């Protein structure tokens, strides 16, 4: 899986990393039990700070997307059905508001959501 870090973006680097891993898991690019690079290796590879990578991994661990093991490092965790985190619902609300304000119809917005949802499950 390719991870891209945009240094000009307003989104913090740790959040960019967290988001890409979440999307990667949803799209099937990262499989359950798959090993993620160690914090040190990923920092070395990308040139971003170790603390930044560590922060993203901690967040992913708290959210249950990965588990960390002293010997294996970080691995993608199985994520079965669970309650939608409150933050996600708020983010979705914001995104839909933005779509409505941009002039998109309800049907088109639902079609867009459907397409993105399918992209995450068909792989």
């Amino acid at each position, binding site marked *: 899986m*390719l*991870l*891209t870090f945009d240094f000009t973006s307003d989104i913090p680097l740790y959040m960019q990393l967290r988001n890409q891993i979440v999307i990667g898991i949803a799209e099937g690019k*990262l499989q359950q039990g798959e090993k993620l690079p*160690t914090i040190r290796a990923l920092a070395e*590879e*990308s040139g*971003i700070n170790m603390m930044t990578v560590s922060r993203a991994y901690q967040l992913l661990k708290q959210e249950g997307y990965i588990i960390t093991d002293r010997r294996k490092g970080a691995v993608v965790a199985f994520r079965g059905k669970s309650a939608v985190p409150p933050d996600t619902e708020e983010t979705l609300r914001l995104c839909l508001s933005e779509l409505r304000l941009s002039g998109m119809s309800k049907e088109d917005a639902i079609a867009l959501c459907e397409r993105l949802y399918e992209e995450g499950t068909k792989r």
Partner: protein
Amino acid sequence: MNWVLWGSVFWIAPLICAMLANETKFKKNIVLGVTLPYSARDDEDVAAVLREFRRRIWIACGVLLVLVVPCVFLKDTALWTAWGVWIDLCIVLPYVPYVIARRRLMELKAENGWVRESRTAVVDTSAVSIGRWLSPWLFLPPVLLCLVPILFDRAMLAADLMFAFLCLLFWFGYRYLYRNKAEMVDENAELTQALSRLRKYNWGKTWLVLSYAMALYCLSMLLMSVNAWLGLAVIAVVTVGICVFALRIEMRTRRMQEKLTRATGTGWYVDEDEHWIGGIFYHNPDDARTVVNSRIGVNSTVNIAHVPGKIFLVFLVLLLLALPFMGMILGALGSQEIALSVSDGAFTASAGATHYTVPLEEIEEAELLPQLPSGLRRISGTGMNTLIKGHFSADGMGSVEVIADPTVPPFLLIRTDSGRNYLLGARDPAVTRQVFEEVSVSR
């Protein structure tokens, strides 16, 4: 002397020019420090820029080699100054056509719309930390080999320990002067892994062979005490061997990079041009690392966006600027004043920062030698035509502390009751004789 001096450096010009000429071949989509798509390889304008660059670089090489001829006949300070200036020219002159050609390629890149959006870092998670590190134990045999001469000659202890330390330093260089970053060219993970393994393997091989070469240097110093010419011959062979080996590794790595990326650059590809000033200096404030890999080949370089990188660059520039003054510096060092005197019940000798004081009651024997002792070898210190000082060893004498002008006999040899030896000689033979008499009378 002149032929040896110029013979030891004249090859730098064709070597640098050959390395730069080699950059006209596409490797990892990069040519002369510019990342271009696959279609640019058949572009007539690009080909013309590369042809012109190759022509100019070999003209520069010819000019540099012709300059050597009159310099061979220079002497003393003028010789050393010319030597320093010539090496500076060797390093700077070939980069003039390089920078010109690169600028033209960047213009072509913009004109043809080959510029990629950047300020992003892309990581392939399947290629992170590819390739295994060599075991540190592999560096232990050369360290132990460096310590072997101590069993035969205790006088060489300091030099042997220094060589052993250098071998350890090479392990450190191998492990920490390498940016463990995947060699990513495009989305092809297998290609990234192959290029990363290639670089890491050759990097490890280079440092390991260098540490064994250090052990050979150390053993050849022991050999010098038996047969000076044989020892020198081994040193010369090892030096040539190291140069050939390092060049071979670099060129083989480049060749493989060229071969493996022959068909890349059609879809998405990595373009980091904006981080490379003039295609030579890496400047990326978004990259937290100071030591980074060169774009092609096997070497490392520094990120000058950070303070340590800046310091390194300034140090390098100062070193280059200091080279032409080497003749004057060496001249001043070689003519340093040598002071020998007897006062307050002690004998003192000094030259620059080297200073010896021996109480007269500790002197067991003082002898005036008409010539330098046989087999006098420098362990540490200065060994110039007109000044030798520091820690030496000599046949049948072992360790000896020296301050003398080797061209002005006689030499005063002092032995203390604790078994220490001092070999001294002023620039004026009358001073050496006078001090010898004062020491003899005082004892």
